């Protein structure tokens, strides 16, 4: 900003030379204020989403700038919510950007007193090992009368009801093929 611009931007100068004689309006407006606009206008991408809290299913628009979420707000097109959100829905950007959100795998060994770090690949291999071992150890081919059971009660799962349908589907499909029957969800709670 050159000195001339700076002086022209100076409120008192503008008050004395402009229409804003009280100096409380246009003359007082800073350059930043003049340029100030909704950051959603600068978004690289606007993505349609759905609020992850309750089951009303309010439409959300997710604004993305430089690979990060810059704003989440209600989608006015939704005939369900008409652009409105409750405090939880309105806070969903914090859900995504929360500083206490954990970004890495944590591991607690049996009888351990602290978390340890573990790579995701190692964790996946270890979990697969445990599923296979526990399944073998607890498998029931039949009951005591020889009636087919084909199952394990050694492995259980409890899912939240914010899982996507596609996620629930793969869970139920995999668990059922593994013979695990204690597959449950918040829907029963």
């Amino acid at each position, binding site marked *: 900003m050159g000195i001339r611009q700076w002086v022209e931007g100076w409120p008192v100068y503008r008050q004395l030379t402009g229409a804003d004689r009280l100096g409380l309006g246009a003359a007082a407006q800073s350059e930043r204020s003049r340029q100030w606009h909704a950051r959603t206008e600068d978004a690289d991408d606007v993505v349609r989403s759905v609020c992850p809290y309750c089951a009303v299913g309010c439409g959300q628009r997710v604004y993305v700038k430089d690979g990060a979420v810059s704003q989440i707000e209600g989608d006015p097109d939704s005939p*369900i919510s008409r652009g409105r959100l409750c405090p939880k829905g309105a806070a969903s950007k914090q859900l995504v950007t929360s500083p206490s959100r954990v970004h890495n795998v944590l591991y607690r060994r049996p009888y351990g007193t602290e978390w340890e770090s573990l790579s995701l690949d190692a964790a996946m291999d270890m979990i697969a090992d445990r599923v*296979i071992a526990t399944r073998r150890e607890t498998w029931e081919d039949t009951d005591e009368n020889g009636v087919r059971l084909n199952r394990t009660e050694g492995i259980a799962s409890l899912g939240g009801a914010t899982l996507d349908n596609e996620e629930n589907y793969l869970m139920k499909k995999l668990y059922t093929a593994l013979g695990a029957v204690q597959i449950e969800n918040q829907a029963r709670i």
Partner: protein
Amino acid sequence: MAECHPVGFQWVMEAKNRGAKIIHVDPRFTRTSALAHEHVALRAGSDIAFLGGLINYVLGNGKEFRDYVVAYTNAGAILREDYADAEDLDGLFSGFDPQTGRYDVTTWAYEGADPAPAAGERELWVHPDEEHGGEHHGRSARAESYGSGGATVHAKPIIDETLEHPRCVFQVLKRHYARYTPEAVADICGVSTRQFLDVAEAITANSGRRRTTAWVYSVGWTHHTVGVQYIRAASILQLLLGNIGRPGGGILALRGHASIQGSTDIPTLFNILPGYIPMPHAHQHLDLDMHVGLDAGATGFWGNMRSYTVSLLKAWWGEHATEDNDFRFDHLPRLTGDHGTYQTVYNQLSGKCKGYFLVGENPAVGSANGKLQRLGMANLDWLVVRDLQLIESATFWRDGPEIDTGELATEEIGTEVFFLPAASHVEKDGSFTNTQRLLQWHHKAIEPPGDSRSDLWFYYHLGRIIKQRLRDSTDPRDRPVRELTWSYPAHGPTDEPDAESVLAEINGSGPDGPLSAYTELTDDGSTSCGCWIYCGVYAGGQNHAADRVPGSEQDWVAARWAWAWPANRRILYNRASADPDGRPWSERKRYVWWDAEKAKWVSPDVPDFEATKPPDYVPPENAQAEDALAGNDPFIMQTDGKAWLFAPAGLTDGPLPTHYEPHESPVDNPLYAQQASPARQLFGGEHNRYNPVGSEVYPYAFTTYRLTEHHTAGGMSRALPYLSELQPEFFCEVSPALAEETGLEHGGWATIISARTAIEARVLVTERMKPLRVRGRTIHQVGLPYHWGPNGLSTGDSANDLLSVVLDPNVHIQEAKAATCDIRPGRRPRGGALPELVREYQRRAGIEGSET
């Protein structure tokens, strides 16, 4: 509704603005009460008495919508001579076995219906002598298997259209509810007769041909030992008033999680397969024929269950599933009883269950009796927790309440814990099914941070690794895994599986590609479909869950915004919005009608009826499936096409809703000798003792609930600064009278004690809580929001720790909305003094050392 579904409440406010009367029935005065015309503050756990009173008012005053009731319900069906009602048996129905705590439901059937085609095969629960050994409490899960269609009745009833026959449903109903007088309602619920009659008059005046009344409920109705019967009671009332299948009517479940509906449709639930197909039972479903033969109604759309089941098996086992091998029906594991989440905890405590996945769920805070949950987890071999934050269920081994009390020691807990960070909703593609059955797609906006992954990623890759490991196995038990179809395209930097390819599998396909409707499914193996009720969401290879025509550019039904199951129908059973001849009941409530010229049903919605079946269609003898339903049978998933006022099958605890007291109640049951539901599911053990009925040691009723500012067990709200500051800590709500009686101070601390534990909370003394007059006594209620635990920014004790595990026998849901406690001023003891206080109370109540 304003409290927990604020944005949905905008439509209630719209209705209010147009003249609708809003009545709020709730023990608690909430944000909803504040905006309603009337708040009915009834005692927690007394709703069936209230609804029964309304049913009695309707029947006693001839206020039923007679034409609707006669044509569309089973009011005229004749019951068996040996059926005995709760009226006759002082609170029990015929068939109860006090030894087992179960009903034999044979006598609840329609007259003339073949009660048992083959011994032990038809019944809706497992007979005691068939019970598989080793279950702690061997209830069968059969009853709730009928989510989509109701239970099967293999015969059409004999009907008395005059509704005069003494054994017809209508007359039985009248007798059953006759004692639910306004005075009885007042005595049980603590609601004045004047207010009760105000409500009765309002809803009856607002129902009929020209008007409809809607009921909206949430877990305030389901969290009871008689939760299913609560909903049944509302169904009976709404059917009598003609409020089902019509615009502005219905019984609307407000579900509290983004896809809790989807989690039932495509269930991660033990008792059902996708689309409410029952999981096979070891003793009843030896092969596919028996499975579909028993569960499919021969008539109604459930008559096609073989097609739905075969198509599911084809989706899962592909080319390996053939006619010759029963489409790999034997790959499915078998149930033998209750395998629900609370039974699982007991299996963890006994060492039977060794590995546990928690996927976006926090049972240490969110489930009843949190201590039992934590002790169960502390007894596992391994635990996998997938979440955004370090929830209490991931950290119980280092900072759970039992570490402080000395009941657990970190270095003695052998559980191996894996915490895997999850992706948030903006970091993955997928669909939620909302409370209106709408599948809405959410698009991925950004990559998840660090090791965070979608649950789709986790299960896809876990399955891929396990399949890899078992690739060369010759063990027959590994065949279901080896033969499982598991090829989904994965892409991007993290090898994320393509969610839309999973949706396409759910939708199903046939020889010509994606299917458009479940009516295209076949039982010959030529179609595959992962969830028959979702068939059509991917019609034409298009993701209709992502349909987004703005509401402002559509009519009010808004059919081109997302996709509703089934078949994109927005109101279920909407054929009932027209009279038997196919004409709207009134122009004002016109929704679906028969257009004689076009010879089809028309509507702004998708008619929930075969499009060209005329109103005067009469089914031929021996017709099957939907062909067996007449042109005036709107309830097409029912075997008889009628809505059931009386449930001749499908329930374990009675064919008609009956007022029973909560398991823990401060008062007796004035209506019957039977105090609580005789079929309720009890557990035991030293950590799940029950407060005695009417105990002076635990004299107060309490109920649990949510606040607008937080979400369930807090995993998605207590770590968020903007939400935490709005409700920064756990509190209880008490009336000025209770504060006076117990010495509680506003803003001070209270200790609340049950037979399970003691917790502390800050005290809000508020006029919104008011003592009620019940059974001639003053009953105080304590209100407890249940969001808290020790982790996060907003912290506090967990209200659910106070609860016991005692369940509804149909669906195995806990009684979280009505129990008893003591409350006293001051903070709770720390360390070992806490369990000592709990034991001291148990001793005084005479339950120390009891097992149930």
